[in-house]
């Protein structure tokens, strides 16, 4: 297809002009503006009026045609004004399982007291989310991107556009906020973990909701005791987490690549993923063995995520792996 190389050239040019950055403020360098289809119809209307003015030699018809043309021109300024000065900032992403939608958080900030109305953002042209910066100076947008395979997802450039106020022009920009999201493998239901209870077990079942040792956080669910809410964390981040305590940490389980010999890599990873999820819900300590990788058993959300990230990026190039921030 001849469009492909053209698009590549365009992407290259875009990258040079608007390099990926964590935070982008829109200005004349990165805002494009062109008439919409309605804008073209509007121009045709003006031409018709002009013809009527010429043929009837009617000055007031001329005047009205000129007024509408001038309004069209002035609307370019208003449309541009409604986009320039907006700052887009990446506010992180949430990992997801392949097949679900990855969530990207984007922070919109307005410049000073200038207000912005009817902004539209989205990864693709047809699925846009609206936003306004009228009453608030900031607004946090959650944008979703469909995933199909595990790995590190780069959603590409983000479209931000507006047709405000008259819809005759569209101002837009393609912004690369340098955002990525981890996509875990799609969990594939597998049987019980072979050799599951092969740990050094002390015999006693792990007792969740114990009181002795703090072992991690989990999301607050209604009905949980407020006594164990991690208030400090809440104050910092708005996440309502529950401190979990346990007694008798006693079982160590290995999730091993070698258990699954017959399946393809992706199915294997899916099954491993399934086990990680299962074990994370239990109170076992679990570790992961992949070819060339061994992670000591552990517990808690962080541990679980660490394992899932390993599964997500297993076998992929290093450069695709997420940085330290995860």
């Amino acid at each position, binding site marked *: 297809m001849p469009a492909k190389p053209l698009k590549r050239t365009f992407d290259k040019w875009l990258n040079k002009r608007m390099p990926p950055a964590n935070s982008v403020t829109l200005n004349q360098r990165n805002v494009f503006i062109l008439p919409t289809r309605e804008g073209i119809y509007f121009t045709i209307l003006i031409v018709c009026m002009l013809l009527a003015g010429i043929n009837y030699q009617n000055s007031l018809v001329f005047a009205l045609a000129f*007024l509408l*043309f001038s309004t069209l021109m002035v609307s370019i300024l208003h449309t541009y004004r409604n986009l*320039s000065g907006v700052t887009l900032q990446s506010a992180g992403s949430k990992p997801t399982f392949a097949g679900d939608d990855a969530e990207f958080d984007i922070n919109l900030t307005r410049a000073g007291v200038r207000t912005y*109305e009817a902004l539209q953002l989205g990864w693709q042209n047809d699925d846009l989310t609206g936003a306004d910066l009228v009453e608030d100076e900031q607004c946090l947008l959650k944008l979703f991107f469909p995933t199909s395979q595990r790995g590190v997802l780069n959603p590409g450039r983000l479209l931000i556009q507006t047709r405000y106020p008259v819809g005759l022009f569209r101002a837009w920009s393609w912004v690369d906020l340098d955002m990525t999201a981890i996509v875990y493998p799609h969990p594939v239901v597998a049987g019980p973990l072979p050799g599951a209870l092969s740990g050094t077990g002390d015999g006693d079942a792990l007792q969740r909701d114990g009181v002795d040792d703090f072992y991690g956080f989990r999301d607050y669910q209604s009905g949980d005791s407020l006594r164990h809410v991690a208030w400090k964390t809440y104050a910092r981040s708005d996440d309502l987490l529950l401190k979990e305590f346990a007694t008798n940490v006693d079982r160590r389980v290995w999730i091993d690549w070698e258990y699954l010999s017959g399946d393809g890599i992706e199915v294997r990873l899916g099954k491993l993923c399934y086990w990680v999820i299962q074990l994370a819900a239990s109170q076992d300590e679990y570790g992961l063995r992949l070819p060339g990788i061994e992670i000591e058993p552990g517990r808690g959300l962080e541990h679980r995520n660490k394992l899932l990230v390993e599964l997500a990026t297993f076998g992929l190039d290093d450069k695709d792996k997420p940085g330290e921030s995860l």
Partner: protein
Amino acid sequence: MTFYQIPRNSLAWMLASQVAVILPHVTRLPVWIVLVVIGCVGWRTMIYQGRWSYPGRWAKVGFVLTGLVGIPLGYKGRVYGLEPAVSLLVVAYVLKLLEMHLKRDAYIVILLGYFVATTEFLFFQTIPYTLYMLVTVAMITASLIGLNQTQTHVKPLKTFRLALILLGQALPLMLVMFVLFPRISPLWSIPLQSQTAKTGVTDSMSPGDIATLSKSDGLAFKATFEGAPPRFPQLYWRGLVFSKYKDGTWTRDDLRPSVWRHRQAVPGWVDQIERVGQRYDYSIILEPTHQNWLFALAATDIPEDRDVAMVREHSLVYIHRRGVTSKFSYKLTSHLDYRLEVELDPFFAYRNTILPIEGNPRSRLLAKQVFAESTSHEDYIRRILTMYNTEEFVYTLQPGALGRDDIDDFLFGTKRGFCEHYSGSFAFLMRAAGIPARVVVGYHGGEYNPNGNYVAVHQFDAHSWTEVWLDEKGWVRVDPTMAVAPDRIESGIEAAVAAEDSFLSDSPLSLLKYRQLLWLTEIRLQLDAVGHYWDTWVVGYTPAMQSAFLSEYLGNVDGKRLGATLLAAFFSLLGLVAIVVLMRRSTTPLPAVDQEYLKFTKSLARAGLERLVGEGPIDYAKRVKRQKPELADVIDEVTRLYVDANYKLDGHGDLKALKKAVRAVKLKALTLNS
């Protein structure tokens, strides 16, 4: 299929603007179309209010059929013309309302609205109409804006305000384009003739015609003179020349064009008109007549305008090639004293003496007798005029009916007549005696407006008189009305018919009826003068006018230079507008106290103490004080003043003190930084 939901704000403006746009058209629309308009707009309003649902297929078919049948029905089968075209547009405009399922449909309704608004100017071009149309255009624009606003904060008036801002910023650009955009002559001729708008002098004259016209106070034209205008009695505005008399009606000579061409006088005959006496330069703005003849004082040079032509008759009659469909302005030069066609082609002399073979025997007999007694043609004319003057002839707007031998009936029976009775019978008596004579119709007099140095001629100034050909003198104007009612010629029709109180008897509200009230007349003349400047400079800004105006101010203008000037002026103005738009912080500026508070947070932010999102002023102050105790007093001061201004019931707070405090914080924060 999911239907697009038009934002309510937009729809409200759409419906309102639609009513406003169609309203001035209503009098010209057939009653059927008015019903369709009411039906569609009403139905859509009910849907808007949630009472009705969209019409079914049959209701829509009903509306369409009513529209399709209503137009030819309303215009008596005429489907080709200006009014039917506008009606069709209006029908499409309202029907589309009930078919708005996509966003695109809403745009179509809006664009149609702009176009229907435009067509209004084909009928009226006065200042009040223009202002009204400007408001409707703002309303349509508001509905366009409503389509693109986020639905959560829609306030119809705010939308309208934004529309006004947009149009206000476009206005200076529009003026530049209006003055500089090259005006060109029509690209093709428009056959659209308006039916209702035909007013004024028509192309035939029978007894009673002009008397009827004299009941109208409509404006015919305005003539602006360079220098003082001629005296009132001299203002004979010639329109048409009628050389044919048949069945009681005077009409233009209907010779075939080939005969005319054959009989055409030597080229340049116009130059052989002997012009004597004072020269008058003036321009006329003619109201749309939807006819093609123009009015001028005699004897006139051919105006330099490609739309104007002299017609074939050697009678100094001018026509507009396409018909005057909108106000038309033309420049003229006239000499009131002249000698025209001293040598009259015998063929034309003959054509100007033709009478029907029979009819009006008593008048013929009278002509024969008086002519026999006369010593010369001039003497004959004098005798006839004396007859009008001495016998009991009455000049009246209510002449009464005449029979088959109309001239006999008039001269020997009723003796009551308006100008057309006198001019018609006089020309008849001349022809009966073998003297070439013809009837001229046009206007006489007019109201001089010193505020604008122009003469306004109204329909009630319509007049007809005669021209008689005399040896060595050529065509000479003879006005028999003068013999009967000298008042008419000296001071106008109102004085001439004052006794019978019939002046403008059909329009009791006309301000022109109250010319004796001086203050009212003064106001009317002032308003009229404003309207006249509007007509001259805005409505009458034609290609000719533009090139005259531009060459006066820009020197030698060719297309290239004009284009360059237009672009330069337009874009530098657009640059200015851009500064205004981009410097403007928001469409609704923040209250002054909020602006001050923002300055305050900004200076603290520079010192590394940014206000968090959603942090209230008091919490913010507490946090900052904890981090920078040395700023505590000024911060407290600002916070107290700001909170007072915003939340205390007694209103505005102390802006001055707040400003001062904010400045203090700024200074302290700066020193803190360094």
